[in-house]
């Protein structure tokens, strides 16, 4: 890990960054987001399989945004999230020095987002077999069984909003679930309110979800939220031929409009 530290130290020393976001060892066998030059020691920097958190979530946190030059050591999903955030005009590429480490443990510094785009396209991992299997078994269920499955899973949601907080794409300054005029989504963490919350969130992420799996990883109740987003991602990709965070400058399916759209209601 010495070369990571050396590299970060270099960027800090020559003034290329005011803050560098990376990873250090966290609780249990997890990694924790680190904010070098501000709160963490560069010597503790790591980058390994434990570094799963999507660091792009911090790019829209206001405490971080206020820095002029930001470095980030991104894992694969973080890179995808960065592209998607740029597509949604949430970040300005010039502010960032984006780095990653490839399979051969070489540090890559991206000159621009186009290079990030080529990297994510070239290095796309195969979807997790367990996820595919679970999606398959869900689509084989009839409606009632699926309803049953989700009713049971979602009943345990406590509305801690960790899924939303950890999601790099949930950046709205006012989430629909927090609007109360009108109250679109029931606040209490039970029954209908839980369904409304998750259906709403899944729809808002349809075609924007970068498949990092953070929502599912962070859910303290072990709700398999990733299934909702994965299903929608597949449907969007099949119907509209694009996947979030893979193509620079792509519109996203639910906000774009084409004159030759096959749906009548849209014309």
């Amino acid at each position, binding site marked *: 890990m010495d070369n990571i530290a050396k590299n970060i130290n270099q960027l800090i020393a020559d003034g290329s960054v005011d803050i560098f976001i990376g990873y250090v060892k*966290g*609780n*249990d066998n*997890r*990694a*924790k*987001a*680190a*904010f070098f030059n*501000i*709160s963490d020691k560069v010597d503790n920097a790591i980058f390994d399989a434990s570094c799963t*958190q999507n660091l792009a*979530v*911090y790019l829209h*946190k*206001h*405490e*971080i945004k206020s820095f002029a030059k930001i470095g980030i050591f991104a894992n694969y999903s973080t890179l995808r999230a960065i592209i998607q955030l740029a597509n949604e005009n949430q970040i300005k590429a010039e502010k960032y020095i984006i780095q990653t480490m490839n399979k051969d443990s070489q540090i890559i510094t991206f000159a621009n987002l186009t290079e990030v785009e080529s990297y994510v396209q070239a290095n796309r991992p195969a979807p997790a077999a367990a996820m595919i299997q679970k999606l398959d078994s869900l689509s084989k269920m009839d409606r009632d069984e699926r309803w049953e499955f989700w009713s049971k899973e979602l009943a345990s949601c*406590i*509305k*801690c*909003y*960790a899924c*939303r*907080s*950890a999601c790099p794409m949930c950046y709205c300054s006012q989430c629909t679930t*927090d609007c109360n005029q009108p109250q679109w989504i*029931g*606040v*209490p*963490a*039970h029954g209908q309110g839980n369904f409304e919350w998750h259906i709403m969130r899944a729809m808002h992420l349809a075609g924007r979800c970068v498949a990092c799996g*953070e929502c599912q*990883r*962070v859910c*303290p*109740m*072990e709700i398999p939220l990733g299934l909702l987003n994965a299903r929608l991602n597949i449907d969007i990709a099949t119907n509209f031929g694009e996947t979030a965070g893979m193509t620079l400058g792509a519109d996203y399916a639910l906000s774009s409009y084409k004159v030759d759209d096959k749906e009548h209601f849209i014309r």
Partner: protein
Amino acid sequence: MNELKTINKDKLHQLFDKLIADGNDVIAPKRKSEKVFFGKIISSSDICYDYIQTAFSAKSSVFPKCEELFSYEKNDNEIKHLDPVFSDKTTIVFGSRPCDSASFDYLKVFFLKENPDFHFAKRYDSTLLISMTCNKSDEHCFCTSVGISPSDTKGSDVSLTDLENGEFLAEIISDKGKKFVADYSSFFENKGDISQKSNKNAKVDIKFDLDKLKTKIKGSFDWDTWDKQSLACLGCGACAFACPTCTCFDIQDEASPKSGSRIRIWDTCALSLFTLHASGHNPRENQAGRWRNRVLHKFEYTDTKFDMVSCVGCGRCIKTCPASMNIINQVISIMEA
């Protein structure tokens, strides 16, 4: 000296099955996939023994994530309020760890000392805590730093120790516990040797000196440690909802103007909306302030108010945090400042 008995695992399970058959709720550790949660069991075979700590505390048995405060019916201009209906059966919570049971002592003071809370009181009165001392601990346990220990019985009605030979040592702690054990005396055996307990119980190192912390933390409000430690915090509610002593809630109405209910739901000072004024002003405007509030509330504010530090050292917030925030590291950084 507490009254001692033993009960073997088969008898314990028969006891639970009988309690369930008699219509009582039994809440016990159950495995979901990787984590173990407290949940209502329908048979003693649902119980999971392989856990150091459940992912969430047992507080939901006395302070559920959603609960009706009252319901109402409104006709023209006549309004009728109805108290929620509480079951007259006992809720048996089995397998709470000493930290968890100790949290009930805090909850009791918090909810009942001033302005006694009707709903908590009703649930507390009908809850019986059969706790289990700890034979194992992990790196996030710090009960001994906050005056609790893996062998502690405070807050419990009956405290069991797994003797790892198919038998449990039962210490009968409270009057409620005495009555319960008397009612089901046939399941217990009148023997027991307290010296067997300490051999089994885990040793947990003291991570910080509480008295020193209490002095040091006063006046830490303006330190930059809060800003530094909290940068990773995402501002969700996972830590507080998992915490046995977090008691904050929101009040919401559900249903129509004609009939419906007013309910309370868990809420937390970690969320930015918690303190937001209607004017848009937010007195705790950044995450550092919210993280600070949670830590100071545990170690300073409740100590000022109730003479009780309200962190019981269970480590749940550490294990649950999606961002790997760590309250022990924060405490240590205060001690070192």
